[in-house]
């Protein structure tokens, strides 16, 4: 356990040093992560303006709070592993990971957390500035904050395990881009990134709740906005725990099979 902690600490230093080498691309990456929710926010504000100040149960202020929180939660749970794996398998760099006496997922988790620790403070500042312009209405209850933190960690894990597993499709196919594209479209709709799930028709809401998508991004936001009852919050946490378990089992199975394929066809 001590070794793993040491590994995470070292990975943090490595990630930090690498990111500082690419300050410009870091800025561009962050602009992208700010612009996307901002566009949705502007669109929905306009729609609610023309609809008399609200859409469904969302006022303009609610939309502002929703998309700013969305921006932050998405930043925390986001991964780029699906692009990364395709490159690793294609270039054969995975071989080095397989030669090391540590499961490669550790350096990926550590790398992800490290880069979040660097970007999150900047994103918080941006959120505060944007909040000044868009006037979000947000009243948080202490219990919502208390549940929000574990929900956020679980959301990260659900998304990380799922995307790490999907990334492993690179072992079988060279058409990873098509799989990624399909997946990202589903995330966009079913995780609440484009619009609050509450505004979708009920079949979509049910689908989002059965699938892991709501639990990866939307759920912590809904919690903090005070849109869930304690019972719903508890059910949500349970759903997240179930998805973390499913994800970690899937990941193990797919990883083993993937490595077998990799080591059969020529690493």
């Amino acid at each position, binding site marked *: 356990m001590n070794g793993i902690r040491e590994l995470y600490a070292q990975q943090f230093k490595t990630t930090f040093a690498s990111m500082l080498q690419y300050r410009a691309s870091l800025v561009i990456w962050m602009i992208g992560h700010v612009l996307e929710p901002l566009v949705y926010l502007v669109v929905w504000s306009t729609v609610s303006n023309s609809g008399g100040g609200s859409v469904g149960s969302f006022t303009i202020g609610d939309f502002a709070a929703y998309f700013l929180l969305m921006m932050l939660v998405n930043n925390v749970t986001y991964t780029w592993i699906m692009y990364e794996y395709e490159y690793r398998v294609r270039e054969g760099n995975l071989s080095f990971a*397989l030669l090391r006496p540590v499961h490669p997922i550790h350096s990926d988790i550590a790398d992800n957390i490290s880069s979040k620790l660097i970007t999150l403070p900047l994103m918080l500042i941006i959120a505060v500035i944007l909040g000044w312009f868009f006037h979000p209405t947000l009243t948080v209850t202490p219990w919502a904050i208390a549940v929000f933190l574990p929900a956020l960690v679980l959301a990260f894990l659900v998304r990380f395990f799922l995307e790490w597993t999907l990334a492993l499709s690179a072992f079988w196919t060279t058409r990873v881009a098509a799989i990624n594209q399909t997946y990202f479209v589903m995330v966009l709709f079913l995780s609440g990134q484009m619009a609050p799930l509450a505004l979708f028709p009920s079949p979509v809401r049910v689908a989002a709740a059965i699938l892991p998508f709501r639990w990866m991004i939307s759920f912590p936001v809904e919690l903090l906005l005070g849109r869930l009852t304690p019972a719903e919050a508890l059910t949500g946490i349970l759903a997240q725990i179930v998805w973390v378990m499913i994800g970690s089992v899937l990941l193990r199975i797919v990883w083993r099979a993937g490595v077998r394929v990799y080591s059969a066809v020529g690493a």
Partner: protein
Amino acid sequence: MSSSAISVRDLRKIYVVTERESGIAASLRSLWHRETEKVSAVDGISFDMVPGEMVGFLGPNGAGKTTTLKMLSGLLHPTAGMVAVLGRIPHKREKGFLRRITFVMGQRNQLVWDIPAMDSYELNRAVYGIPAGDFRQTLGELTELLELGPLLRKPVRNLSLGERMKCEIAGALLHRPQVVFLDEPTIGLDVTMQRRIRIFLAEYNRRYGATILLTSHYMADVEALCRRVIVIHHGKLLFDGNLADLVRRFTAHKTIVVRLEDYGADLKRYGEVVSCEEGSFTLRVPKAETARITGRILAEMPVIDLLVEDPPIEEVIERVFAQGAP
């Protein structure tokens, strides 16, 4: 068997590759019917290495060298046969096994591109759980042997190819592996840098008693480092033994270099004249005839100096690959 560091018995690797002809029709056909072909990359090779031995692994491109190294390091599952490295089965990739080996791939980098090598080394320290004291000592020794000093603080991408290779090798040895696999460690490097790395490998082998198996296209590497060579071709073992024996076995000729007072002498009657310049003549003669021809030249010509040599090792190897099985 337990005295071997590496033991390989009848090792085979067959790749199944999909193939299709070029063109749109063939592409469409391949949608529902895939033509596959079995390619035998390693075809039943056996050898043993004792601890501390340093062996050169030779063969032309596509002979199966890299495939064999990948099976030995656990990256590839063998299709058939047995491999044991340090008494373990490599492809199980047990942590205890991985800690005791390393695999340097000359054409790939494990160091993080954008940051100094030193930072990657620190990461390796954590990955391999190297105690701080051992790490400092090993790094100190490697730094001295490879003259890494000023390189460690520069981002890897700013290093020259040779400098990067030195840093790669050091990074791969920080955990003091007992078995070291090197695939083309000197590829693309200039002669001076090749020599540096050779000297280093010899010293590393001597100092730590590590078992080293290396492939190289540069015969100078193998000549300088390995008493024993293993030659494979089309996945089959062609030769396993002394480098000198290899030369003896595969060369039918010797080279005689003669210096004469007479610059214009005609030596054609003694053998094939390979070159002649300013009184120095190089002749190629059948090995069995060497003594007789040398005697005749000495008796009949105004000889200043005479030297009998084996042909250059490159030439020998070329001949080995060209003729296939002995």
